[in-house]
C-alpha cells in the first residue's frame, strides 16, 4: 500500500488544481504497479514527451493545459520532432510538422524550460550529486545516474510529466541506495592500440547493453583519459542496445571510486571480459555498409554535441570542403554559445548544418536516396535504420569528417 503525505492528499483532492490532481491520480496507480511505499520530493524533471508519436501524446498535454496546469518541479524538455529555430529543415508531412510544433508549444505553456535537448546535463539545469530527480530519455537517465550520481528511474511516457506536475515521484528502484550497486562486472581486458577513448566508449557501451540488458554494470579498465563526452556516448549506446539505467566506471564515476564500493558487497550476477577483438567486432557490427561505401551525409551529435565536442571538431573542419552535408545536432543553449564564439559561420563554410531542438535520427531532415549516413554515435547507429530508413556507418569524429571530404566511408 502507498502511504500518502499531507501534500499528496492535497494534490489528489484537487487542492493544488485539477491538473495536479489528474497527474497525482496517475502516478498513484503507477506507484501501486511498481510496489512503491511512498512518494518523495523531486528537485527536477526532464520530460520526454515532445516527440510526436500520435494524437494521444498531444491530447494528454492539451488536457493538462486546458486544466490550467503548471509544473511544480523545475522541468526541462527533451527534443521535439521539429527544429523551431530552423523549421525549414523539416521535410515530413505538413500535418505532422504542425502537430509536432504544437506539442512542443503546449509543453512550454505548462511552465517548462524550452531546452529541447536530450542532453539537459549540458545545460544550467544539470542536477547535483545525490539529487532525487524524475527524468525521461534513456541517455539522459543513464548519464544522470552514472556520471553525475543523481537518482532517477527510467521514467517513460506520461509518468515523467506527472512527476513534473506534482513535484513527486514514487520511491522505488534507483531512488534508493541499496538498488544502485553493480549487478554485473565488465572487465575491459585489452583495447586496440590505435583507438582513441571515444571509440572504446561506444564499443563498450554497445556490448554491455546487449549483455547486461537492464542490469547495473561496473566497468573496469576504461582508459584514464576517458572524458565526460565519452561517458555520454557509452551510456547512450548501452541504453540503446539494452536498457542500462546506471553504470559504474571504476575510477571515473562518482559512486565507483573502486570496484568494492561499486558492488556494495553483493555478488555479481554476470561477469564479462572484453578483449580488443571483441571491441573491434562491436564497432564493426554498428555499420551496415562496407568501408568505401558511398556517403550522402554525415550526422554527429546523438546525444546532442557538447561545446567541448565542437572544440575538438573545429580544427578538423579547417581544410578542404566536405563533398557531402554534415548535420550536427545540438541544443539551442550550445547553439547560442557557438554564435557568440563566431563559429556558426566557420561551420557553415565547412558545409555543416546545425540542427537544433531535435535530432536528425528521429525526424525527417536528412534526404537520402542511396548510400549510407555516417555517425560517431552508437545510439544513432542502432536506431537510425529503423527510424528513418537509412543504411549506417559508424566511425570516430575524425573518420566522419575525413569520410565527408571523400564522399565515401574512409577509415583512419
Amino acid at each position: 500500500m502507498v502511504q500518502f503525505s499531507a501534500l499528496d492528499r492535497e494534490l489528489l483532492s484537487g487542492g493544488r488544481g485539477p491538473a495536479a490532481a489528474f497527474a497525482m491520480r496517475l502516478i498513484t496507480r503507477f506507484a501501486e504497479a511498481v510496489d512503491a511505499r511512498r512518494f518523495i520530493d523531486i528537485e527536477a524533471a526532464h520530460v520526454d514527451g515532445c516527440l510526436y508519436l500520435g494524437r494521444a501524446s498531444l491530447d494528454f498535454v492539451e488536457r493538462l493545459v486546458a486544466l490550467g496546469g503548471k509544473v511544480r518541479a523545475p522541468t526541462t524538455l527533451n527534443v521535439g520532432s521539429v527544429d523551431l529555430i530552423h523549421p525549414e529543415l523539416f521535410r515530413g508531412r505538413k500535418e505532422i510538422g504542425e502537430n509536432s510544433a504544437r506539442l512542443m508549444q503546449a509543453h512550454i505553456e505548462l511552465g517548462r524550460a524550452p531546452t529541447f535537448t536530450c542532453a539537459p546535463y549540458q545545460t544550467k539545469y544539470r542536477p547535483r550529486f545525490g539529487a532525487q530527480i524524475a527524468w525521461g530519455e534513456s541517455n539522459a537517465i543513464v548519464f544522470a545516474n552514472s556520471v553525475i550520481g543523481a537518482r532517477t528511474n527510467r521514467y517513460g511516457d506520461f509518468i515523467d510529466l506527472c512527476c513534473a506536475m506534482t513535484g513527486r515521484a514514487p520511491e522505488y528502484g534507483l531512488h534508493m541506495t541499496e538498488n544502485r550497486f553493480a549487478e554485473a562486472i565488465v572487465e575491459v581486458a585489452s583495447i586496440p592500440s590505435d583507438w582513441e577513448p571515444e571509440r572504446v566508449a561506444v564499443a563498450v557501451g554497445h556490448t554491455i547493453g546487449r549483455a547486461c540488458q537492464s542490469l547495473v554494470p561496473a566497468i573496469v579498465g576504461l582508459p584514464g583519459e576517458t572524458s565526460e563526452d565519452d561517458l555520454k556516448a557509452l551510456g547512450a549506446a548501452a541504453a540503446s542496445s539494452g536498457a542500462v539505467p546506471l553504470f559504474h566506471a571504476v575510477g571515473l564515476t562518482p559512486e565507483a571510486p573502486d570496484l568494492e564500493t561499486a558492488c556494495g558487497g553483493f555478488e555479481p550476477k554476470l561477469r564479462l571480459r572484453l578483449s580488443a577483438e571483441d571491441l573491434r567486432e562491436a564497432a564493426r557490427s554498428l555499420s551496415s555498409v562496407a568501408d568505401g561505401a558511398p556517403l550522402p551525409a554525415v550526422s554527429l551529435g546523438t546525444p546532442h554535441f557538447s561545446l567541448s565536442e565542437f572544440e575538438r571538431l573545429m580544427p578538423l573542419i579547417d581544410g578542404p570542403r566536405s563533398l557531402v552535408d554534415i548535420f550536427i545536432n545540438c541544443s539551442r543553449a550550445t547553439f547560442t554559445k557557438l554564435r557568440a564564439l563566431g563559429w556558426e559561420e566557420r561551420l557553415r563554410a565547412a558545409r555543416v548544418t546545425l540542427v537544433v531542438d531535435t535530432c536528425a535520427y528521429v525526424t525527417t531532415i536528412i534526404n537520402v536516396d542511396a548510400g549510407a549516413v555516417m555517425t560517431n554515435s552508437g545510439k544513432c547507429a542502432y536506431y537510425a535504420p529503423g527510424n528513418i530508413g537509412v543504411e549506417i556507418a559508424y566511425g570516430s569524429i575524425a573518420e566522419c569528417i575525413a569520410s565527408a571530404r571523400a564522399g565515401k566511408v574512409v577509415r583512419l
Partner: protein
Amino acid sequence: MVVDAVTLVSGAAEGAPLRLDEPLSFWGGFDPATGLVIDRWHPQKGACLQGRVMMMPAARGSSSGSAALAEAIRLGKAPAAILLLARDAIVIVGAMVAAELYGRACPVALVREPDWERLAAAGRLAVRAGAQRAEIQIDDR
C-alpha cells in the same frame, strides 16, 4: 466457469484470447494504426491484437510503449483487454491514460499463474474488472 483476478485498470470487455509467446514492446514492436505486431524478431509477427484478450506475462523494452498503447486504444486498434502475470507499469499507464482521455476502457487484470493455461485455451473470455477485484468468465465453446 469464472477465474478471479486483480484489477490493474478497470473496465469490461470480451474477446478471444491471444497468448503472446514472447513479451512485446508496444513502441517499435506494434503498430497502433493497424493493431499488428511488427517486431521482426517476435514469433507472432503479423498477428493482429485488435479486439483480442491479449495475454502476456509482462511487456518488454522501451518506456515509450505507453503512448503507443494509448494511441491504439484511441484508434480502436488495441486489444479488448490485457491479462498479465506481473504488474507492468508501461501497460497500466497506457490503458489508464486512454481511459482518462477518451473514456475507452481496455481493462487490464493480473491473473494467477495456475490459471494461465486454462485462460489461454478458452474459446472466449469475458473480463469484468471492478475497482479492486476482477472476474474472468471462461467460455469454452
